[in-house]
């Protein structure tokens, strides 16, 4: 069920290690599909009627649903099992990376790709102070010189985490939004593209695939991720440049890019850093350029139960900024960075990898529609993104 990574930086587990990874992936699918459905039914049949009886109304937001669910036995088992499964994702991968560390680093050195490092950069506290989403060592810890292990841990972990639902190379988000841009804006053909907070470049390379004439750059604060991303791009033969840089303080001149993209990035940032990144994105975009962030959907577009369901990560999965971000008014957030209020862009799309082209194009044309699949990893997830066009000069 779990396949080896398809590029030359793969680390190959023993059969028992692979079996353990498959178990964790199956356990996560069971939690996020079967148990999630049972928990919702439990809420509708038991928790909600009790809440309505006590308060004379339904819960107004995710926090109220969370409070009401606290005493529910099924919710506790769901949370406990999901938390353990998250730990087990990393436990199923780290020993394999560790055992192959020297070989992996040698292979990365042999095909470095284009990695521009900045040893003077201070990795921000939102990365260093906690082990984000229970990942031991967070995104940045290194154990050897020129270490790529942060990238290897992330790449291999997400391969287990995604249980084959996020594309062939865990790159469906990138393919979905590169193709969204291609189909939704046929007159817009970006020549310079920036992917901010790109980790290993999963969702960076699809832009180079869809827009082969564009210069594509990925940035991240973690040197280990940048080295790995560049070597991974080189292994795939994609001429993409990766740079160690903080998105809140970009080392690019004004008006450098036609498109600034990010995916699954904003929810890792404190609100002040999101605001700083948005201002920087506005600055480095050319007039008429597009800013687009793939993210979890905003709470104000979701039903109370779906808000609670998606905010689980913020409550329990060491994602402290996830809910504060999702509680924002996204159009306001974008407008505050200087983008015109009437140029706000929002999209909900099915996964490009698993959707016939015509159906995908029809969904792009029909505009953003929100439901309980939006942003929820399962077997029918749909991706959300928002942003804006910069004013043409």
């Amino acid at each position: 069920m779990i396949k080896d990574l398809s590029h030359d930086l793969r680390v190959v587990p023993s059969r028992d290690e692979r079996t353990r990874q498959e178990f964790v992936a199956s356990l996560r699918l069971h939690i996020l599909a079967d148990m999630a459905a049972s928990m919702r039914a439990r809420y509708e049949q038991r928790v909600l009627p009790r809440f309505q009886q006590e308060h004379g109304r339904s819960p107004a937001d995710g926090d109220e649903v969370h409070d009401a669910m606290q005493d529910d036995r099924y919710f506790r088992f769901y949370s406990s099992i999901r938390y353990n499964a998250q730990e087990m994702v990393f436990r199923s991968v780290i020993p394999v990376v560790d055992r192959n560390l020297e070989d992996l680093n040698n292979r990365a050195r042999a095909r470095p790709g284009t990695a521009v490092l900045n040893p003077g950069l201070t990795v921000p506290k939102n990365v260093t102070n906690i082990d984000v989403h229970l990942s031991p060592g967070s995104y940045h810890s290194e154990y050897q010189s020129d270490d790529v292990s942060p990238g290897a841990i992330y790449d291999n972990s997400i391969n287990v985490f995604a249980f084959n639902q996020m594309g062939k190379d865990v790159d469906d988000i990138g393919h979905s939004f590169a193709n969204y841009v291609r189909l939704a804006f046929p007159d817009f053909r970006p020549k310079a593209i920036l992917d901010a907070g790109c980790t290993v470049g999963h969702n960076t390379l699809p832009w180079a695939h869809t827009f082969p004439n564009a210069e594509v750059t990925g940035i991240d604060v973690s040197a280990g991720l940048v080295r790995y991303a560049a070597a991974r791009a080189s292994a795939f033969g994609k001429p993409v440049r990766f740079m160690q840089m903080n998105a809140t303080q970009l080392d690019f001149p004004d008006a450098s890019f036609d498109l600034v993209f990010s995916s699954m990035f904003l929810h890792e940032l404190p609100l002040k850093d999101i605001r700083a990144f948005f201002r920087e994105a506005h600055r480095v975009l050319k007039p008429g350029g597009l800013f687009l962030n793939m993210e979890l959907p905003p709470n104000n577009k979701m039903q109370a139960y779906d808000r609670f369901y998606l905010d689980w990560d913020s409550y329990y999965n060491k994602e402290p900024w996830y809910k504060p971000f999702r509680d924002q008014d996204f159009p306001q957030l974008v407008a505050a960075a200087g983008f015109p209020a009437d140029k706000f862009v929002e999209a909900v799309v099915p996964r490009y990898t698993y959707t016939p082209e015509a159906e995908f194009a029809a969904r792009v044309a029909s505009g953003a529609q929100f439901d309980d699949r939006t942003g929820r990893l399962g077997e029918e997830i749909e991706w959300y993104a928002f942003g804006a066009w910069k004013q043409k000069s």
Partner: protein
Amino acid sequence: MSEALTRRKPRIPLNHRGKRPRFFEASGTDELMSMVLELTAELWVVKKRLYLLERVAGQAGVPLTPEIEAYDLNPEEVAELDGRRRLLIATVLRSLEVDHTGRSKMREEMEIMGAPVQSPGPGPGPA
């Protein structure tokens, strides 16, 4: 336990920093949940390996079941299995080890559990 358990020093920590949340009021229930899940994972690993073993042996023309019943373990094999059994138990009980900084030993044990197993003799390996 033998050199098998100390031959490789892990470099990357296996445990995240910080306190684990408690989902249950009854003391010990959270740890029991971790035990059950780790145990189930390890049980699946074993079940899949046995499944493969029977098929590989069958393909090789070895009537495995009666031979297993008749097999005598030598002292080295007994010691090796003792070590592996202890590793299994340490993994199943890992959630009781609340010291998140000093668990390198557990980490090391996990790694060795996942290491490829040496075949005791010649013969075709799994595909």
